[in-house]
């Protein structure tokens, strides 16, 4: 049996659900918004991790779950809890439910897309960059500092420099401008990450186990996710094929990070140098699939069903 977790109307989950239905796979859905009607018990003993999951009145043995795909939103932000006092029992029970479910996924046998431990490498981009480098990818020259003079020096050395958050917090990648330099003293309050700009073509690679889907993105924006905001024109996406060597490297990188499913952000220069910026452990692949028709959701469904 396959377990899907999250909000059923969310695009990536919706796409995987359709694929599982089409292939006739047995699956159940933990709909977070119906947490009041769900429950879990987790048992750890000499025979491993077992237990029971209750989903909208039906009971399932955790031992029967061979594949899980989780896109849980932060349960504290669920609309159903908006009016709930901070310390209410309903809120606490909802938290415990998600917490125990996540704990089980860490130790569950079979295929889990993805476990929380391996996903955590994305909590620090410069840390993850070091892991990426270990897999043979080039990474952009990066400076993290709270010394404005060092930033100026870095900019004069590299010319075009960008800055972005280090943590998992979503931020819009920005070019360091002359105006930014005027407020550089602010970095004294918090070390900030700067990177040499790398020119080239953005390529998003999704790996699902051994399967590889590459999408080239054409955009003039510094951060193509915000192309309309930054350049007034949406990014253009098209399917591309990677060399066998690069495809293998991407699969190897995802494995190195312990990810069954990964969204790898590459930039390929005119000299064919391949830079890797980041690996997203919970990729919102629907954006790429809906523009290119690539079978990413089908591959995810296949991976879950094969477990």
């Amino acid at each position, binding site marked *: 049996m396959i377990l899907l977790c999250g909000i059923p109307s969310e695009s990536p989950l919706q796409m995987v659900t359709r694929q599982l239905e089409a292939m006739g796979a047995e699956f159940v859905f933990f709909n977070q918004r119906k947490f009041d009607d769900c429950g879990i*018990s987790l048992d*750890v003993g000499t025979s491993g991790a077992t237990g029971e999951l209750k989903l909208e009145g039906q009971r399932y043995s955790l031992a029967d779950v061979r594949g899980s795909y989780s896109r849980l939103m932060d349960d504290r932000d669920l609309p159903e809890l908006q009016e709930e006092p901070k310390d209410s029992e309903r809120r606490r029970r909802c938290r415990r439910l998600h917490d125990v479910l996540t704990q089980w996924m860490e130790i569950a046998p079979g295929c889990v897309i993805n476990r929380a431990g391996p996903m955590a490498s994305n909590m620090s981009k410069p840390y993850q960059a070091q892991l990426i480098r270990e897999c043979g990818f080039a990474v952009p020259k*990066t400076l993290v500092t709270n010394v404005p003079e060092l930033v100026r020096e870095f900019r004069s050395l590299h010319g075009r420099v960008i800055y972005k958050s280090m*943590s998992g917090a979503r931020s819009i990648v920005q070019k360091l401008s002359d105006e930014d330099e005027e407020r550089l003293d602010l970095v004294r309050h918090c070390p900030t990450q700067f990177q040499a700009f790398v020119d080239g073509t953005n390529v998003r690679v999704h790996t699902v186990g051994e399967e590889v889907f590459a999408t080239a993105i054409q955009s003039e924006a510094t951060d193509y996710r915000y192309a309309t905001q930054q350049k007034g024109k949406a990014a253009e996406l098209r399917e591309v094929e990677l060399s066998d060597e690069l495809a293998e490297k991407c699969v190897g990188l995802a494995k190195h990070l312990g990810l069954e499913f990964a969204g790898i952000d590459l930039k390929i220069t005119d000299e064919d140098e391949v830079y890797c910026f980041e690996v997203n452990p919970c990729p919102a692949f629907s954006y790429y699939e809906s523009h290119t028709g690539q079978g990413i959701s089908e591959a995810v469904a296949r991976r879950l069903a094969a477990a």
Partner: protein
Amino acid sequence: MYLILCSAMDASAQWAARGLGDLLPGPLELVLAETLAEGATWEHRVEEDATHLKVTLADGRVLCGSRIKGVVNRLMAPTPARTQWPSETEQAYVHGEIHAFYLSWLHGLPCVMINRPSPTCLDGRFFRVSEWLYRATKTGLKIAPYRQTDDDGGDGYSLPVPEGAVRHSVVVAGSCVFPAWMPATVKAGCVQLAKDTGLELMGADLYMDEGGEWCFAGASSSPDLMAGGTPLLDQIAAMLQRGGGR
């Protein structure tokens, strides 16, 4: 230069710093999390083939990544600076940034480090009780059946020992267990658990059940070093000098 990184509250690490000073061939610096948080200037570079770190502390000491030979890392989390941020959201953002930064520079130090950081815990590995127990069973350590549900009040962070049972703590350092009087099978299980979880230094809690068998009751990557006494310090000094950094 050798480093001990810990918080001002970590009496155990500060005790170790006093003892290790005489056991190591080079200078040992005790650097507190609070010192790192206030007035230090940071330069951390991730290059194409190497990672660099230079920290100048407010007291004038300079820590240069390439000159550090070994680290005892007890930094559980960065100490927040005293800066007042306009909102809780900004405060949380900065906290996330600093944590991400510490993880990166600690990971980038090429020397031997006891313990190396992970994304979930700066001084080693953090697991919930369920995962520690699950991992313990894989090493042959005995555990009592454990249950956690959405209905019970258990937090999943701590495991109470049965009423009347006495909790014993051991410290694993490399392939040695302190104190040494534990049965060989229990020591082997603890050493294997530390190895499986990538910890050079691990504390394990055990208790004797009604049948007279030792049961595993939890572990941590920041054990009380004083419990291991001078023999533990000798072992840590040996591990630091053995090298084997990345």
